[in-house]
């Protein structure tokens, strides 16, 4: 069920109405809404999700009571990961086994339809269970409350990956929440921002990026850069659109969901990038993979190795293909190199140039590195990805045509838009006040109406899905 589909809008509207009109039954209302939302993708998947969620909840209660905590933690986490592995990685494993051992297996027979949101809910389940085991979190007060937390329909499919300690207390207290019109309005505002990003920007840029990536290994150096730049913006607008809409819906219900993006292409290094891109995943990887692997507690080499392993796992989480693993390794190596550079060079050598110059230079370089990484993420296979990256780095087979120059202007315009978003987001409260104070109601209304009209007009009838839905 896509956010910009009529069935989602209807479900949200009815749920919101009941949620605010019947304050004492908010938990069951949301539980039913979650069930209806997930059932749209298929009842068997809903039953599977309900079963795994119930088991995780009961395990958490037992762990909290001290009943075989370590064993139940392993079974609970192992069960969730096994569920993910079966659906997501079986065909990949069989394909590679077949390549190595020639067992006569047909990987297509093992290609299962991926339950929607499985990667996201698995990470939420694992985090919840580990947090309860560590004593950082008390279990939810009831299964139904846990279900509302784990399957909240606004963020179930593509995050943000919520933590129990952030979200469960909000659910526990929501019966006492009063409707705040300002907050509701802000939720609508975020939802519309997200909707516009999706239908006006992402869905328009997507086919342009496809045009370059569909050329495969035949693409020239400049075209490869253009395709990768366009995809960089497509995936940003697509994924951040979903997050904006999810956070916006959260506000409409009076919840504060965690922000997932902070204009990431303005990052000056890999560490900053992961603090601004898919923030909740980065935190998850840090807390449940990087730190348990030793983090920075065992010296530089172990820390760098842990970064590479964590980022590789992050890549593999995105998809069962070598290209995603390569994307993870690429970012792992980039982060490790940056750590080495910071420790060995940057902290010792002071460049004789103003700070703003180094800042912008590092943003420029980081954006190029991120763009190269996206080639692995998007390309149809490793051979194509490696060929494209080789052409990008060697700048070979450049075609400086008028069309390509137009595309470069478009890329520059998209980057300026990204800057504008940063400027807007960092000043949004003051801007809103100015907007409200200086412009009369009819003029503001005209702008709102035009925004709605533009979003409706530009929406594709094909209802393009969000890229991250497939993870």
């Amino acid at each position: 069920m896509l956010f910009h589909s009529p069935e989602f809008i209807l479900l949200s509207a009815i749920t919101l109405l009941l949620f605010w009109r019947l304050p004492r039954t908010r938990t069951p209302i949301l539980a039913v809404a979650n069930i209806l939302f997930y059932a749209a993708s298929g009842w068997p998947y809903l039953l599977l999700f309900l079963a795994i969620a119930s088991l995780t909840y009961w395990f958490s209660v037992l762990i909290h009571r001290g009943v075989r905590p370590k064993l139940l933690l392993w079974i609970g986490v192992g069960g969730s990961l096994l569920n993910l592995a079966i659906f997501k990685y079986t065909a990949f494993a069989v394909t590679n086994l077949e390549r190595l051992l020639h067992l006569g297996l047909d990987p297509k027979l093992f290609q299962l339809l991926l339950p929607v949101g499985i990667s996201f809910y698995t990470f939420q389940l694992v985090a919840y269970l580990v947090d309860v085991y560590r004593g950082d979190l008390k279990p939810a007060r009831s299964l139904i409350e846990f279900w509302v937390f784990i399957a909240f329909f606004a963020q179930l499919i593509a995050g943000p990956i919520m933590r129990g300690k952030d979200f469960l207390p909000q659910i526990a207290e929501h019966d006492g929440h009063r409707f705040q019109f300002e907050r509701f309005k802000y939720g609508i505002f975020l939802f519309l921002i997200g909707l516009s990003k999706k239908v006006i920007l992402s869905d328009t840029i997507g086919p342009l990026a496809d045009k370059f990536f569909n050329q495969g290994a035949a693409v020239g150096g400049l075209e490869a850069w253009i395709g990768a730049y366009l995809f960089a913006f497509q995936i940003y607008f697509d994924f951040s659109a979903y997050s904006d809409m999810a956070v916006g819906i959260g506000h409409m219900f009076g919840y504060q969901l965690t922000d997932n993006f902070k204009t990431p292409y303005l990052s000056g290094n890999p560490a900053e990038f992961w603090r601004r891109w898919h923030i909740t995943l980065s935190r998850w990887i840090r807390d449940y993979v990087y730190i348990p692997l030793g983090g920075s507690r065992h010296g530089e080499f172990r820390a760098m190795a842990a970064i590479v392993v964590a980022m590789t796992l992050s890549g593999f989480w995105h998809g069962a293909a070598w290209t995603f693993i390569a994307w993870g390794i690429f970012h792992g190596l980039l982060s490790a190199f940056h750590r080495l550079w910071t420790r060995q060079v940057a902290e010792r050598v002071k460049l004789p140039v103003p700070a703003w110059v180094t800042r912008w230079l590092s943003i420029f370089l980081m954006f190029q590195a991120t763009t190269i990484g996206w080639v692995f993420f998007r390309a149809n296979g490793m051979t194509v990805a490696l060929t494209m990256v080789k052409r990008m780095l060697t700048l070979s087979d450049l075609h400086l045509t008028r069309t390509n120059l137009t595309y470069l202007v478009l890329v520059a315009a998209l980057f300026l838009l990204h800057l504008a978003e940063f400027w807007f987001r960092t000043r949004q409260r003051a801007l809103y006040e100015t907007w409200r104070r200086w412009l009369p109601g009819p003029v503001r209304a005209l702008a709102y109406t035009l925004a709605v009209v533009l979003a409706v007009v530009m929406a594709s009838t094909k209802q393009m899905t969000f890229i991250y839905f497939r993870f």
Partner: protein
Amino acid sequence: MKSSLKWVLIYLLVIQFGLGYVIPTSWTYDQRIRYEVFKEDTTVLDVVLDQIKARIDREDLTDYVIILGDSVGYSGPGGPDQSIGYYMSQISREQGRPLTVFNLALPAMQTGDLYTVLLKLRAKGIATPRLVINLLHAGFVVRAPYPPVVFWLDNDLKQMDPDSWSRFRQHLIDAGRAKEDPLLTALFQRYIAPHVSLLRYRPVIKGELMSLFSAREVYDTRAWTEKPGLAELLQGYEYQIGFNPAPVDLTEQNPQIYFLQKIMDLTRNDQVLYYLTPTNQELMKPNVTNPGYRENVTRISEWMTAQGVDYLDLESALDPSLFADHVHLTPEGYRVLAGRLLEQLNQPAKQ
């Protein structure tokens, strides 16, 4: 905010009731339906039909021609002013008998689509006193499963003639059509979207907005002899299958025949001119000289004649120099074809 909300509602109401009056007809129809807009959303056909209906009522038209067909009827690769409908109007004007022509042909349309358009015309109360329909040999050959017998309008057919749709449901599914929308989406599309002006005119406005940012369309109307690589391209399966020399099935088991009979039943009281689309006899020589293919053309002509309809076999009627490829024509080719069709239309109708 509350005051803004009030104004938003007022603006939306203005859009709801005023949008239809400010969208020019040329945004949807210029000598033919604007294909780019139609491709974005096929519901734009309803907008066009309503505009045609309004014009017929306004000008009290009783004698006009409606063209139905595929890309040849649409007159690709030429522009609107190089299309059959345009030339038919122009020639009839020159002859002192001005004729209004509505060209509803669109690329890739199949017989199932043509039948559905006719159902829509009936539903809108648009009479079809004179119709011109082009047929192609490719339409009669086995669909295995591509192309689907309803290429664009399977959702409309499902609503308007569920029996016919059900009959070919499996074929449509095999050919990648007949996709089921979720219930709410289907209900929304059927009962709400057509009545919300913004949704109804959405593809039209989008098409116009996008055209502001895209290069002006260039129509490649060169003759086929000036297109290197064309002959090789036409050796591809998707082109060759249209010349399949295996005997065509002329029973109702063939979806082409089924829908042709449906069209004939529906237009029994109208003057309908069917014609077999001209084919480039030089470019496609190995195909069109195949005895199986020739036999098929003869059998199709005999079958059409046996139905008692007005039928023109133009398969080998045009000079190869008038072609842009295997079946599409140069502007001059379309002008010649328009003349032939007009000549036939002006003959006394068969009873």
